[in-house]
């Protein structure tokens, strides 16, 4: 029993000394900057971030000029962070008139990039909100949640200054500039900090404005669609009448059989 007690003390002292020796070695190596225990710290804000590899999935970026609005990314996305509209350009090619990526929902999985047929969609190599590699900041709207626009560094500074001042104290020029950079409807922004939010009446106004525009657009689209449909219907009836006149039996499957 006494021997076990002695052994216990020995083991304790041994483990204590071994542990202290190990940490001491770490300490010495760290201070001297050599060996396996050199400080591995990347002093990020003071030193630039090291992004390793070329496959880094930063945030999504769409080259609008080669996007064909095929909705492949939309279909591949598990969280539905895309919403897009397309229109035909002069060469009758589909081009994105609106391409919104809700980066507050994006999970950076890269499935959309793998699905993209034209390589227009890519992920940046900078990390999510890297101000160093992006040389500026991407602005994200909070509630409508989309990548809004990119600001260059001086603009970022100016905006942060302006947005953190009471709005009433801004000059008209500054206020106009601020409104031009930041959508007043986006209540506040992801990725851009210290930015203000806007008074509810401003938001209500902006909402109403947007709603009005949307309704107008919808109404216009509906009218156009109705007109087009009427036109098409007339044409189809005409064609059908012509067809029926030509082949009395008609095809029951409407010409869709393989």
């Amino acid at each position: 029993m006494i021997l076990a007690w002695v052994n216990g003390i020995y083991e304790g002292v041994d483990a204590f000394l071994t542990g202290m020796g190990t940490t001491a070695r770490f300490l010495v190596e760290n201070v001297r900057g050599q060996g396996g225990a050199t400080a591995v710290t990347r002093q990020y804000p003071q030193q630039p971030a090291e992004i390793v590899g070329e496959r880094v999935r930063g945030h999504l970026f769409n080259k609008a000029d080669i996007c064909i609005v095929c909705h492949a990314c939309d279909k591949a996305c598990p969280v539905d962070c895309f919403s897009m509209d397309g229109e035909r350009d002069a060469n009758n090619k589909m081009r994105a008139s609106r391409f919104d990526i809700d980066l507050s929902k994006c999970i950076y999985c890269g499935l959309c990039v793998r699905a993209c047929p034209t390589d227009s969609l890519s992920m940046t190599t900078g990390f999510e909100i890297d101000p160093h590699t992006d040389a500026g900041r991407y602005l994200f709207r909070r509630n409508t949640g989309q990548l809004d626009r990119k600001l260059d560094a001086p603009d970022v500074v100016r905006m942060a200054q302006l947005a953190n001042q009471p709005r009433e104290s801004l000059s008209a020029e500054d206020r106009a500039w601020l409104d031009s950079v930041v959508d007043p409807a986006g209540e506040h922004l992801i990725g851009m900090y210290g930015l203000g939010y806007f008074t509810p009446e401003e938001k209500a106004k902006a909402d109403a404005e947007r709603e009005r525009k949307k309704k107008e657009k919808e109404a216009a689209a509906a009218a156009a669609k109705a007109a087009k449909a009427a036109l098409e219907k007339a044409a189809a009836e005409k064609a059908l009448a012509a067809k029926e006149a030509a082949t009395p039996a008609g095809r029951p499957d409407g010409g869709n059989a393989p």
Partner: protein
Amino acid sequence: MVDPGIARPGNDPDEQVLVTTVDEFLAWGKENSLFYLLFATACCGIELMQTGGPRYDVDRLGMIPRATPRQADLMIVAGTITHKMASRVRTLWEQMTEPRWVVSMGSCANSGGPFSKWSYSVLNGVDKYIPVDVYIPGCPPRPEALIDGVMALRERVRKYRTLGMRDRDPHVVQGGDCAFGSHPGRDGACGPSSAAPGALAMSRGDESPRTPQSGKPAQVNGGPA
């Protein structure tokens, strides 16, 4: 509650040399010593852990983790908040002492992220329960992004005024439909005051809803309905 946006005597920096100077000094301390609450729920928690680890070492920036909310200045909401968890997050936030800040880290805390569409149990954005100062995108955000978010938060902390008027209260609830907090102007979720047009002017800079000593919100507008 006064609107600090309107210039009035005593609110001008040059008029209160001593107060603003001391305030600036106090804000310097707060900015450089943000102890964060060890609060992690999901994936972002691992990244938060690694940010505290040797590679990214937020201790350099004066940030050390504290286990108890009483001693923490900053709550980094790292991970998904479910409906079941949300009231606990609120409790934790209430237990933190002023001045306190909240960083929402990652898509889940920002807006529900991958779970925003199909999930029945995930809270779509932690700002429905607590006011958030900085949102960091990412799923999970890289440690650099987290540090970047903290640096941006520090810009905000720098403007915090202990003694003088605050230019802008950082604790106005910003979220869409927060049932708590003091944001009166949103969708009727925060009491009837939103209907009165006069009340809207207060929303910009109203004081923190907490009395200095109580540690509890002085007024809780609404609550679990």
